[in-house]
């Protein structure tokens, strides 16, 4: 079971976890990416996320399908937020349910690592004294 979503309203962690519930699973690993108050010592005011929606959904779906193909995983939920996020807000939630915990850990870590490399979502960090598209420049 795959459940993916791009949302411009706050992510519902409880719903993500509930959607991944499965009586045949003994382990659930969840990754939540949240907005940190500092980047390399500079105080962050907020983040602005944008995405190439159709392609982002397609790439997220690929990640979910690959995770299920590569590990013994029964359910995977990947919800990503877009728009303006404040400190402490949740940008991404990934929930992986598997019969055994090893697969849940591996699949969840694979999903977030791959998402950060392949999914066309971009964030701009707004600092007190400027702003920057993360990872854009060396």
């Amino acid at each position: 079971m795959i459940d993916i979503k791009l949302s411009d309203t706050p992510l519902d962690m409880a719903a993500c976890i509930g959607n991944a519930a499965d009586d045949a699973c003994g382990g659930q690993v969840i990754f939540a990416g949240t907005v940190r108050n500092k980047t390399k010592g500079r105080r962050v005011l907020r983040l602005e996320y944008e995405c190439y929606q159709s392609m982002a959904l397609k790439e997220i779906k690929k990640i979910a399908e690959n995770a299920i193909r590569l590990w013994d995983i029964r359910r995977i939920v990947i919800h990503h937020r877009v728009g303006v996020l404040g400190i402490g807000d949740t940008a991404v939630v990934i929930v992986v349910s598997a019969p055994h915990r090893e697969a849940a850990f591996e699949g969840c870590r694979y999903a977030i690592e791959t998402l950060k490399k392949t999914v066309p979502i971009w964030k701009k960090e707004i600092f007190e004294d400027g702003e920057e598209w993360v990872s854009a420049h060396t």
Partner: protein
Amino acid sequence: MKIRILAFGVVKEFMNSSSLEMDVQEAITVAALKAEFEALYPEIKKLKTYLVAVNDTYAGDDETVDANAEVAIIPPVSGG
């Protein structure tokens, strides 16, 4: 032929627009398209790297682009 190019993130910002219509030769390759785009917007060369997507899929330099394709310039992603 005319193709429409979508821009996101830092690219949208320096283009001052979320899309662009470009007049290019028929069946242009991704590599040639990149060269034309770089000529129009030299700022793109300051990026760490960038990719091109054709119809929602990352495209290699040798692929050709036809008139109906949805083309997007993909600067380094930073989701999560």
